[in-house]
């Protein structure tokens, strides 16, 4: 007796009970198909993220921020009161000194700042309100900023050129982006200053001192809470008016530049660039005239102590973030520890990716668990079928024993049968799961195309998934068959063979 004989007998039995075999295997098919298609989605997502990370060179990119102003100096005034009793740690600004220090960290091959302006640009007769980002020459070669869709890269830090990004193309629905290459573009920004901000506090269209006085409930002034509330509201109003005034100064600075290329920028808020990239010299010119700082920039400068309202000249140049390129093979943890030691907040994509992988691990586990629950249900079907089969074939078991079959043989015979159900179910389930993933992919892709998003493949079916699905299907059916098979092995031949 060998495996071939067992398979022969098993196949014969399963074929005799076609409907029952079909129904039992169907349970496994459905469960495995669910398992495969869901994990194929998980694997697809994971692959997309990994390849995107790789394409953009994110595995060797780290971004450095200032320590979080939100955390150290909450905007809420009441909390600020309680905080002021403690000595607030001064936030170290991301200035040129920081840039120098960061670039000297071992393993850092490149450090370049990120600066942005709120600007408006005019090309031909169209005017676009958007944002520009400084792209220093040293960053041209990084994977993050290398890929051009059209045209050429910026010449140098001092060239009078400009890059658009596909962000810009998308945002303003430019039909023929390549036709923009070589065109002249006028970039302009509002200059803002502290004077105009201070002026706005006392003289604003929306502020009427007489009306304010009228609104006061003088009786309630004895109530401490009421006073606090009034003061708080007034302080907030004043800050708001200052910012408005700061921003709304009417002086405009502008420059005319040539569009040289269109850059393909990355995914995610941390990596994507602003719609327009400008060289360093242009940025310096705009900067010195106080161009286009947004309200948020202002707030963070003020809270980090960089903005001295009464001595504007003391304002050092600072950046919202600095990007580090890290040498191949350097431990990101070492670099990020050094960054922390310098008093900044690092963000490592490689470390982030570990988190993402952890997430995907649990995500996959979750999906797998759903499939597994379906599989357990299916396994109950197998148990049922096998128990039925044993009851029906009790006499056959007795005969086999009288012919000299031992318990192991009987056990294996029935395990072979449930394994075959598992094999058939798992194989068909993998095929069905694949079909489902193709269907899902087709639907998703046509949806993405309709929405104008770059269509990506959401499902992949790596070999490990096929193998795992098959192994799990087989293992579950063997486990399901084990109890009935053991029962079969213990059938009493005397009873089974009794003549009646």
């Amino acid at each position, binding site marked *: 007796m060998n495996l*071939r004989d067992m398979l022969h007998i098993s196949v014969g039995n399963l074929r005799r009970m076609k409907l029952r075999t079909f129904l039992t295997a169907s349970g496994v098919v459905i469960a495995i198909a669910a398992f495969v298609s869901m994990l194929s989605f998980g694997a697809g997502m994971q692959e997309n993220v990994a390849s995107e990370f790789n394409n953009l060179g994110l595995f060797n990119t780290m971004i450095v921020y200032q320590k979080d102003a939100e955390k150290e100096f909450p905007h809420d005034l009441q909390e600020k009161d309680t905080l002021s009793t403690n000595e607030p740690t001064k936030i170290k600004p991301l200035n040129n000194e920081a840039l120098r220090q960061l670039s000297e960290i071992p393993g850092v091959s490149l450090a370049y700042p990120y600066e942005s302006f709120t600007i408006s640009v005019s090309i031909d007769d169209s005017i676009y309100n958007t944002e520009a980002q400084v792209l220093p020459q040293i960053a041209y070669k990084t994977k993050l900023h290398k890929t051009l869709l059209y045209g050429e890269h910026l010449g140098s830090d001092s060239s009078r050129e400009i890059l658009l990004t596909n962000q810009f193309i998308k945002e303003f629905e430019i039909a023929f982006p390549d036709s923009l290459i070589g065109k002249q573009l006028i970039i302009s920004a509002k200059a803002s200053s502290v004077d105009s901000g201070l002026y706005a506090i006392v003289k604003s269209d929306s502020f009427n001192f007489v009306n304010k006085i009228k609104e006061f409930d003088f009786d309630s002034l004895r109530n401490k809470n009421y006073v606090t509330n009034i003061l708080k509201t007034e302080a907030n109003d004043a800050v708001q008016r200052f910012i408005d005034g700061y921003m709304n100064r009417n002086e405009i600075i502008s420059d005319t530049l040539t569009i040289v290329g269109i850059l393909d920028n990355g995914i995610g808020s941390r990596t994507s660039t602003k719609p327009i990239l400008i060289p360093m010299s242009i940025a310096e010119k705009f900067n010195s005239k106080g161009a286009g700082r947004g309200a948020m920039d202002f707030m963070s400068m003020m809270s980090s102590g960089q903005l001295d309202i009464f001595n504007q000249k003391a304002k050092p140049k600072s950046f919202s973030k600095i990007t580090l390129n890290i040498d191949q093979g350097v431990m990101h943890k070492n670099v990020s520890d050094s960054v922390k030691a310098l008093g900044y907040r690092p963000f490592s994509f490689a470390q982030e990716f570990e988190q993402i992988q952890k997430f995907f691990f649990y995500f996959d586990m979750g999906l797998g668990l759903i499939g597994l629950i379906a599989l357990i249900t299916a396994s109950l079907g197998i148990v049922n079928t096998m128990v039925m089969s044993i009851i029906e074939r009790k006499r056959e078991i007795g*005969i086999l024993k*009288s*012919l*000299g079959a031992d318990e192991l043989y009987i056990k294996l015979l029935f395990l072979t049968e449930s394994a075959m159900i598992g094999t058939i179910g798992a194989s068909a389930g993998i095929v069905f799961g694949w079909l489902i993933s193709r269907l899902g992919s087709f639907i998703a892709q046509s949806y993405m195309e309709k929405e104008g998003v770059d269509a990506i493949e959401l499902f992949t079916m790596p070999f490990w998934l096929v193998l795992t699905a098959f192994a799990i299907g087989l293992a579950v059916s063997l486990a399901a068959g084990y109890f009935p098979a053991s029962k079969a092995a213990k059938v009493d031949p*005397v009873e089974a063979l009794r*003549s009646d």
Partner: protein
Amino acid sequence: MNKLWIETANLCRHYKRGSSTVKAVDGVDLQIYQGEYLAIVGSSGSGKSTILNMLAGLDTPTSGTVHVEDIDLFKMSKKEIASYRADQIGMVFQSFNLIPHHTALYNVEMALFFDNTPRTERTQKAKAMLESLGLGERLDHKPADLSGGEQQRVAVARALVKTPTVLFADEPTGNLDQKNTNQIAELLSDLNQKGLTIVIVTHDLQFAKNSADRIIRMDYGKIVEVIKNGDRNESS
């Protein structure tokens, strides 16, 4: 006398049914010699089948021993008892006990699954055995397509195909008419002539007297009479 092959000592098989005990076999001492044709007779429920099942190792005694060529059968492992059956025992039952969904040929072949007979040899042997019993035309028939006599001959073929040391037959003719009974009786006598040890359980005293060397009569689980069939011994 021939060599002693099987010996039982105080063999008992008791069934507990609540407070009462059914003594299906109760203190049987029995010797079976090689080449012997032994018949066990007795009324229904006297314990004939139970003895046979214990001799084949299918049933386990509650006390007493069975020695096969001086080896204590029930001291062996289950696996060893199984291969004892596979190598040495052929069994035939009143109700034939063929597997209904397999052909006659495959039913016979299955007896060779457990004694390491190679696959090709297996089919050849089974075919030859069925042919020798006049069933050459019936190889691919399922049991349901065969007459009772034919089915029992298939069962005998299955028992004999592995050339066992002994054939245990539990009322092999119980379901057969006179013609088929005679046919099987002749077949068994013939096999015994050729040296096969046979132990047969039967109701039919005439059958026993015509065929067996020795007849054992049982009642209430005990051997109550041993008849040496001198006539037959002389004739053989």
